[in-house]
């Protein structure tokens, strides 16, 4: 990366703080969040087939509150039959 494309430190300060505040506020470590994701996916998979590679689960901030946001694409039954 050249001088002009180097990311300045304020941006990394903000990104790092965004992450650390989510964990501070929820008392959830990154490892626990991973475990939660796995459990969630296992539970859902018992009922319906999901596209595990495209799953996105994370904590988002909204002012001072956080929400767990999950985007879990389902595999379509017709695709499966065709495949």
């Amino acid at each position, binding site marked *: 990366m050249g001088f002009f494309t180097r990311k*300045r*430190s304020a941006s990394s*300060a*903000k990104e790092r*703080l*965004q992450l650390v*505040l989510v964990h*501070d*506020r929820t008392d959830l470590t990154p490892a626990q969040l991973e475990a939660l994701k796995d459990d969630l996916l296992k539970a859902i998979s018992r009922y319906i087939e999901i596209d595990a590679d495209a799953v996105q689960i994370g904590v988002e901030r909204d002012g*001072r509150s956080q929400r767990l946001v999950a985007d879990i694409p389902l595999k379509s039954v017709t695709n499966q039959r065709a495949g």
Partner: protein
Amino acid sequence: MTAQVITVTSGKGGVGKTTAVANLATTIAMDGKRVVCIDGDIGLRNLDVVMGLENRIVYDIVDVIEGRCKLRQAMIRDKHYPELYLIPAAQTRDKNAVSPSDMVRICKDLRPDADFIIIDSPAGIERGFRNAIAAADRVLVVTNPEVSAVRDADRVVGILEAEGKGNPALIINRLNSALVKNNDMLSAEDVLDLLGIQLIGIVPEDESVIIGSNRGAPVVTDPKSRAGMAFRNIGKRLQGEEVPFMDLDPQSGLWTAIQRLTGRK
């Protein structure tokens, strides 16, 4: 009179709580209100030196609590502003000498005779912090645009919410607008976005703050100081006035243009 109790806190130490208390108390007293400030940092007394009152201390807050003197006797009147008082912290090592209910009682006794009671909280989230917020009607959280200070401020805001002391207002202290412009310091907008609370003032980094505390004369008494102006504005906002936020960009604005023309830095 029924005083409003304002507590200034931060989580992290060294971000400018004591400076903020000394300046806000002084500017509000300069506006003609009666202000009592209380140093809540038991064992690490500091507000007295920043206000230039260290040679006048006879009694402190622990003397009041333990009945060695009357509340009035522990109130030190300021040298220049007769409506400004300080109740100093004790230098005792016993951090449990003060309890939250002691603070509530002292503030209750002071309320009828003052317009504002401003409490300087110690750093941290332990007993001294709990004491400082116990009687608060309003809490001001001071932070610097820096990762550790912002993180600790967020922690404190979370505790205030849990304690039902919600809606704290934020003072962003020591903002260096040249660094912000270079994208090497979190901007006020970044800090506000991260913390998600209301803003009451942005104080620019300003060497006159150090000069002021060297002399025991808070920077609000210096009409030329930019930080002094920012604190004077916060003082007005605490009194219910609507004051627009200052233009902090050193390279732009009418203010700098005038300064450049008059040859002042």
